[in-house]
């Protein structure tokens, strides 16, 4: 591995994003708009808004980075640039690390903006520290990125990639406890949710926003999210083949 190739890749990915003004605008603005929508959906029920919007803040980056990464990596595979890179002296982890850095920065910007809107303009009130929420949001973004990277290996067109969103992300979102507390689900689903990383991402966010937990209290949740990220990255790296049929 080399820091030079990792940083060069991060800079390249950020430059590609910088040229794509519309995507940047969508990534940075849409979550705030959705949260505003939520605020007036629960008009007159500030407790409900606080309960839903707090964790949502930290889940947006997961969704968006999943989508962006899976498509960017698919393009890298289909445009031949991945094959070119695989003939060059760059380690697979340099490439993935570069993506992770670039998208984590984007996620941090996204989380900061949506947090600013939520806390200052929409009057979101959480028990814990907003900084912890942003930190978790970035961790979730990196998890989304790692999963997106992995699924890009199983799609051959952008059309298929987009279909992985409802297939991989939506079930996790439904089962994570955001919509229905997990103990009220059918037992099979509750057991299934124990094995989904987003469950732990949500529980960490919930603990911060409702119970005022600090990073130190969230060892298990953060450990699972980090472990799932590493696992997905390693599996993702194994799908980047120097030699193909």
């Amino acid at each position, binding site marked *: 591995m080399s820091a030079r190739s990792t940083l*060069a890749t991060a800079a390249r990915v950020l430059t*590609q994003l910088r040229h794509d003004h519309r995507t940047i605008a969508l990534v940075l603005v849409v979550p705030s708009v959705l949260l505003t929508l939520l605020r007036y959906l629960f008009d007159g029920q500030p407790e409900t808004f606080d309960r839903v919007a707090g964790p949502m803040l930290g889940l947006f980056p997961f969704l968006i980075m999943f989508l962006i990464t899976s498509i960017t990596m698919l393009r890298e595979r289909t445009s031949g640039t991945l094959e070119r890179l695989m003939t060059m002296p760059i380690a697979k982890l340099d490439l993935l690390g570069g993506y992770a850095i670039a998208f984590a920065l984007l996620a941090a910007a996204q989380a900061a903006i949506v947090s600013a809107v939520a806390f200052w303009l929409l009057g979101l009130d959480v028990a814990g520290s907003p900084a912890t929420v942003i930190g978790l949001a970035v961790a979730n973004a990196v998890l989304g990125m790692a999963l997106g990277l992995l699924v890009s290996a199983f799609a051959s067109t952008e059309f298929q990639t987009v279909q992985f969103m409802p297939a991989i992300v939506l079930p996790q979102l439904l089962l994570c406890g955001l919509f229905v507390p997990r103990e009220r689900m059918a037992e099979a689903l509750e057991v299934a949710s124990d094995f989904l990383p987003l469950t732990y991402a949500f529980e960490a966010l919930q603990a911060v926003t409702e119970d005022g937990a600090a990073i130190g209290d969230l060892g298990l949740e953060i450990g699972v999210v980090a472990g799932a990220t590493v696992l997905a990255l390693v599996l993702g790296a194994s799908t980047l083949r120097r030699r*193909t049929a």
Partner: protein
Amino acid sequence: MMTSGEELAAVAVADLRVRRGGGVVLPGISLAVARGVVTGLLGPSGCGKTTLMRAIVGVQRIESGTVRVLGEPAGSPSLRARVGYVTQAPSVYPDLTIRENLRYFARVLGAPSSEVDAVLATVRLKGEADRSVGRLSGGQRARVSLAAALLGEPEVLVLDEPTVGLDPLLRRELWGTFHALAADGVALLVSSHVMDEAAHCDQLLLMRGGALVATGTPAALRERTGVEDLSEVFVRLIEQREMART
């Protein structure tokens, strides 16, 4: 004659067998590519040129046989900075400018950024450097892809149809560039399905149906067949081969 000694050859392929998509593309090909010359890999579309080139740069899974590049097995990590490869479809980022593309590949290769300007001059794209690759013509994109392969002063250049669709004047200039690189000791393997290009090469590998039909200098092949026109030479060589078989 072509030098085939392991020491001198930049690329040595022996009994290479490759299967792709269920069919055998290369049933067992052997050949050598020398340093310091431009070797043309000529043959009709679909004859296995690209598969052979992919095997040489080490991105093709092979069934049997050996491919050695600069004395090492193709695809070895130590070769990654020494072999430049241009795929048939330009493999560059359309959403970056020409300069941004080249700067990225230069950094990955550990080449100084001054080389970016040098290769831009070589492919005559200096004036366009800050244009987005997505807005370029097909020929310009192909030149960006070629420029990326020239970065890092590779010792072996594998170029898959680099001159297709280019302006004739530019094509001539590029052949001049290839010969200048060869004069510096670089081994170049250049594929084409257009026989006219064969005249620009020092050595020829004529391929058909995954096998070599003939090898030699253009002059030697002309002499062997008694015709001047190289497409005609190819036809005669195939006929001679078919006759020898029956």
